[in-house]
């Protein structure tokens, strides 16, 4: 009984981790770009939402209507203006440039907002819960986050495998030069992909900040969760990312149940086990 509860709560938390991971998986899948600043963009989105909801007097959820487009635009411009210049056979430039961006964002947030712990508010939904059959109470908000993660992934999966834009994404990922021959402007497609990645990052950041507290230095560990979810899931499909997130969430929940100090460590251990047993993840890409 207790364990079922733990696994359900952990699985739901995995929905949030999957949302963290989508942006990372997208930019790696399409541009082979690992964005070290990914976690800091999650936190940046939370701060933007905080300003928007305070400024307009709306709830954090409603602020998504502003934060998502804003982060999409930021992602587009960042890729077009900076990150496209770093792509090539050498892995150092993208890595070190996003690393630099990460440090810049963290310290700008620190200068602007101080090191205080912040939280976003979304009203009554934060505390409501429903009773599942079997008497297990789950929070409405975690459930909502999980459902959103499933919807997002289904949507991405559809766009990727059923639309012209998705074909262009996959073609640019396979062979950017040949994609250009088809009329695909790779700089634009990459920027779009980063825009989309950043839109999901915005959603993840706001939901995360409603669920837990955050501060300017909260980014790196979110990058690590996202990374672990991606590696556990493998790069075969976005559904793998969801499974990866859920495994990470469940491992953390089990760890936390044993002892609070074990929560995060248990997640890392799950990651290590997958890395050692099956380095390409549970749902690997068949070709790379």
């Amino acid at each position, binding site marked *: 009984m207790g364990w079922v509860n733990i696994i359900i709560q952990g699985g739901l938390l995995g929905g949030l981790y999957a949302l963290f991971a989508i942006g990372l998986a997208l930019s*790696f899948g399409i541009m082979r*770009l*690992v964005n*070290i600043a990914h976690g800091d963009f999650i936190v940046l989105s939370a701060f933007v939402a905080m300003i928007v909801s305070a400024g307009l007097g709306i709830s954090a959820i409603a602020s998504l209507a502003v934060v998502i487009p804003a982060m999409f635009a930021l992602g587009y411009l960042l890729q077009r203006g*900076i990150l496209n*210049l*770093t792509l090539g056979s050498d*892995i*150092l*430039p*993208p*890595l*070190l*440039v996003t*690393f*630099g*961006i*990460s*440090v*810049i964002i963290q*310290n*700008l947030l*620190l*200068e602007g907002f101080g090191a205080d712990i912040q939280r976003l508010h979304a009203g009554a939904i934060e505390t409501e819960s429903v009773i599942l059959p079997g008497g297990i109470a789950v929070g409405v908000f975690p459930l909502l986050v999980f459902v959103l993660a499933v919807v997002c992934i289904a949507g991405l999966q559809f766009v990727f495998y059923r639309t012209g834009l998705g074909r262009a994404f996959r073609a640019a990922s396979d062979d950017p030069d040949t994609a250009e021959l088809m009329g695909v402007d790779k700089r634009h497609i990459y920027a779009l992909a980063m825009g989309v990645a950043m839109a999901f990052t915005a959603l993840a950041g706001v939901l995360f900040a409603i669920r837990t507290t955050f501060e300017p230095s909260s980014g*790196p*560990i979110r*990058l*690590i969760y996202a*990374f*672990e979810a991606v*590696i556990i899931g493998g790069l075969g499909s976005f559904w793998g990312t969801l499974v990866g997130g859920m495994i990470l969430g469940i491992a953390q929940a089990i760890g936390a149940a044993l002892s609070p*100090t*074990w929560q*995060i*460590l248990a997640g*890392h251990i799950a*990651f*290590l086990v997958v*890395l*050692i047993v099956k*380095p390409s993840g549970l749902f690997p890409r068949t070709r790379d």
Partner: protein
Amino acid sequence: MAGARVERGTRASQLWAVGITIGLAALVAMPFWGDPGDMRLVAEMAYYLALAQLWNLLAGYAGLVSVGQQIYVGLGGYTLFYLTDRFGIHPFLAIALAGPVCALFSIPVALAVFRLRGAYFAIGTWVFAEIFLLVVSIIPALGGGSGLSLTPSIVRSISSNRAGREMAIFWMTLAVLVVVFALVYWLLRSRHGLALTAIRDSEPASASLGVDTFRTKLLIYVVTAFGTGFVGALIFLQKLRISPEAGFSLNDWTVVVIFMVVIGGIGTLEGPILGMLVYIALRELLADFGTIYLILLGAIAVAVMLKAPGGLWGWVVHRYDVHLFPVRRRLRFEKPD
């Protein structure tokens, strides 16, 4: 026909060797002419330069972009505190053991993270640093979350008075810097150095030529862990206290080190020196403005990576064609007369 010869030394490098010897001699004598504040700054510059050179060996020469070198700084520090406190070993002996201990730990870490490629390798090393931090925080013998301090008796075993202790540590730090430079220099001039260049240029090609890329990279990773642990033990001997947050700090032991190397010029022995000087200068100049210096460093590193990937030293070489540490073999064509 013009003859050709392969040479590694250059005129500039010979001058530089003389300059370095004089400079080092002046630094060794510093306890007799400098004040303690300056000595502390010089010691800090020395260990940062050592860390930068080690990271440069790893990332710039072996292509292993680790974001987790704080593992070995922390581990080295903890080795010192644990061995001295638990077994009453003399601090200097404990520092000498910090290197081997870190090298030992680095092997299983390497076997796991080497399964990740490129950028994923970077984040993988970072995850390991988190793991080390968390595990150390829950081990009571290592002081848990609050860490350990050196006991007064151990501190006194270095020297009975404060000035004597600071002098000893200062000299040790300079010695470690020299050892690290010599180690990296020797490695790069050995056949491993050639293998590294080949791997960096094209891993598949060098593998097909019989270069054992895995073993070469493993060797570099372990050697770097060894050196980093050594430096880490020294750093915390100066600080007299260690905690998981301080020992395994990403910002202090990796972020700024990466910035130094990138700004100075990654993949050169000279670059980290320049980068370290830029870092110290910025930090001291902007000491009153919080973390602005970090933002500035980050921005400079990004700009360097985008506009001048060779860094400051790359620019100097391009401009003046000087090489101070000739690790590359240069083919010189002699005039026929």
